[in-house]
C-alpha cells in the first residue's frame, strides 16, 4: 500500500474557557503538520512539557476531538467526516489508544481477560467464546504473556509491568495499524521502561505497527524513536530524525529541555546539585 497512514495538515485546536464575562481562548495546538507513511512503520514521538498540547493532538488523531482548523486524515479519510456507526467502528479498530496508567485504566473489580474478550468481540469479529479466547491469547502472546497467565485474574493480582503489557495487548486485539501511547512510562522505573520500549520496537518490526509515542522523557524517546516532534505551547518547534535532533537540538527550547534531562554522570562530570 502506498500513501499516508496518518496525515496532519496545519491542525489547530482552540478551547474556550471561562464563564459568561471572562472568556479566554486557549490555543492548545497551533498549526501542526506531519505525515506517517503507510509503507514505513515507525515510532513517532511527540515530546513536550505538560500543557504543550500533546494529549490534545492525541485526541484529534483518535478522532475524539475535531480540529478547529486544518485537517487530520487517516488513510486519506478526513477524520472530521467520520460518521458514527460502521465508519467510526472501522476507524477505532485501526487506531487504538494505549491507556496511560494501567492501574487507573482497569476497573479493580473486573477480570482482565474480559477487556480483551470485549475488544475481540467488538472489533475483531470474534463471535464464539473460543474465538474470543483465541484472539485474546494471540494478542497477549504478542506482548510476551499468554491467556493462561491472565485468565480469571484481577488487576491487583498483576504487577505494574504485566498490567502495562495487558493494556498494550488490549489495544492489539482489534488488529490496529496505529497505536497512540500517551505517556505510557511516566511513572515507572528504568528497567520496566526498557521492557516497554523494547516491546514497542518489536511491535513495529514484527507486526508492522506504527506507534505514536507521547512523552516528556527525552532519554527514552531517544532510544526508541525514528522521528520526533518537539512541542512548546501548542507549536512544533523542531522536528525530524530523532537521533539527529536529540544529539544536537537547534531550537532554544529543545536545548533547554535537553539540558534539563538528568542522566547518570559521564566519568569526570560533576553532579548538577553537588554539595
Amino acid at each position, binding site marked *: 500500500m502506498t500513501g499516508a497512514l496518518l496525515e496532519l495538515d496545519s491542525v489547530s485546536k482552540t478551547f474556550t474557557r471561562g464563564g459568561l464575562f471572562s472568556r479566554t481562548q486557549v490555543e492548545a495546538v497551533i498549526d501542526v503538520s506531519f505525515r506517517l507513511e503507510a509503507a514505513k512503520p515507525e515510532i513517532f514521538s511527540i515530546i513536550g512539557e505538560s500543557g504543550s498540547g500533546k494529549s490534545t493532538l492525541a485526541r484529534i488523531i483518535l478522532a475524539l476531538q475535531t480540529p478547529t482548523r486544518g485537517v487530520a486524515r487517516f488513510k486519506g479519510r478526513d477524520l472530521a467526516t467520520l460518521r458514527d456507526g460502521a465508519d467510526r467502528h472501522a476507524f477505532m479498530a485501526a487506531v487504538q489508544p494505549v491507556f496511560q496508567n494501567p492501574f487507573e485504566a482497569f476497573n479493580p473489580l473486573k477480570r482482565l481477560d474480559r477487556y480483551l474478550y470485549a475488544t475481540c468481540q467488538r472489533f475483531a469479529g470474534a463471535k464464539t467464546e473460543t474465538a474470543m479466547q483465541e484472539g485474546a491469547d494471540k494478542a497477549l502472546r504478542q506482548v510476551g504473556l499468554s491467556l493462561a497467565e491472565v485468565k480469571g485474574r484481577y488487576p491487583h493480582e498483576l504487577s*505494574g509491568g504485566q498490567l502495562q503489557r495487558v493494556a498494550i495487548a488490549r489495544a492489539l486485539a482489534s488488529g490496529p495499524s496505529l497505536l497512540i501511547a500517551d505517556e505510557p512510562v511516566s*511513572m515507572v*522505573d*528504568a*528497567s520496566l521502561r526498557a*521492557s516497554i520500549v523494547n516491546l514497542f520496537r518489536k511491535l513495529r518490526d514484527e507486526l508492522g505497527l506504527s506507534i505514536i509515542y507521547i512523552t516528556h522523557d*527525552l532519554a527514552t524517546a531517544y532510544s526508541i524513536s525514528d522521528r520526533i516532534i518537539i512541542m512548546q505551547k501548542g507549536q512544533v518547534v523542531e522536528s525530524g530524525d530523532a537521533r539527529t535532533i536529540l544529539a544536537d537540538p537547534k531550537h532554544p527550547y529543545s536545548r533547554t529541555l535537553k539540558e534539563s534531562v538528568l542522566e*547518570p554522570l559521564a566519568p569526570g562530570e560533576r553532579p548538577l546539585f553537588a*554539595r
Partner: protein
Amino acid sequence: MSAAMRNPAAKPETADGPVVAVRDLRAWYRLRLFGVDREVKAVDGITFEVRKDEIYGLAGESSSGKSTLVKTIAGAMRPPLEIVGGEIQFSFMDGTMGLNRAPADLVERVRWRHLSYVMQGSMSVLNPVRRIGTSFFDFAFRHMGLDKAGFEAAVVAHLARVNLPASVLKAYPHELSGGMRQRVTIALATICRPQFIIADEPTTALDVVVQKDVLAMFRSIQREMASSVLFVTHDMGVHAHLTDRLGIMYAGRLVEEARTPDVFARPRHPYTRHLIHSLPRIGDDRPRSGLEGTPPSLANPPSGCRFHPRCAFATERCRVEVPPMEQVAPDHRVACFEKDRVEATP
C-alpha cells in the same frame, strides 16, 4: 542548634551523630481479606542511618517498599500498616520508636520544625477548603518567630524559589495544576528549615525544567542549614545529580548502599547493576533490557535472597539463606553472597 535546645521535645544533639538511625526495621501491612490473614512485608529488616548534613537517596523499583519505609520513619503510618520490629532513633528526640506511639503534643512540636515530610502525590497536606496562604500560616507561622508582615515576605520569597508567584497564596488547592500543588507542598515542607526533610518522589510529577529548579532548591536549603534530607525517587538520573549517599531497595529490603558516585561506578549487587545498565542515555545506542521474570510478591516473598529468582548469579545458598548487609569498602555495604563474582564479571 538553639531552637532544638529550646524545644522541650529535643534532647541535646550529639555533634555529628546521625539525624536518624533505623535498626532492623520491619513494617508490614496486616490485612484480613475474606477471613484470610495476609501480611505484606513491605519493609522487612532494614538498617541504615541518615547523617547530619547529607542528602540520602532511596531508589528501587515500584512496590519495593520505599514509601512504606519513609512513612514509618515520618510517623505517618496508618492501619493496616504496623511496626512489627526494630527501632527508629532521632537525634532530636528520645526513644527508639521515633514518632510512632509518641504523644500527640510531642509529634506536634517535632513536625515542621525538626522533621517535615513530603508525601508521594500532591494533595497530601493541603486542606481543600483552605487557601494556600492559610495553610502556610497554620503550619509555619508559630515556628518562624516573625511578625505577620515579615512572615508573609518570607513565604513569598520562599515560593519564588520553587517558581511560584505570590498569587498562589490566595488560591485554593483545586485551582492549581498538579505541578503547582506539588511545589506548594515542597515549599511548605521546607519553609521552617527543618533539620530533617523526608521527601517521597517530590519531583516525579514535575516537568524536567521545573524539576531542575526544585532539586537545586533542595540542595541549597540543605546546604544553608547543614540539614539532612531523605530523598526517595525511582529516577536514577535524579540520584546521580543530587544525593550524597544512595540506598537501593528490592522487595522490602536494602540490598546495597554507598556514596552515590560509587553506586554508579562500582555497583556490587546484581540488582543495582541491572538498574544502572538499564538507564537510557541520549547519544548511547546500546540496547537496554528490562528485568526478566516476575516481580516479587511481598505477601509471599521468595525465600533466601529475594532477588534470587531473577538473578543470573544465584546459587543454591541464595535460595536458602538471607544474605546480610556487609561492608565491602568505606561507606559501601552490599547484601549478596556472590558479590565478588559480580564484581569480577564485566
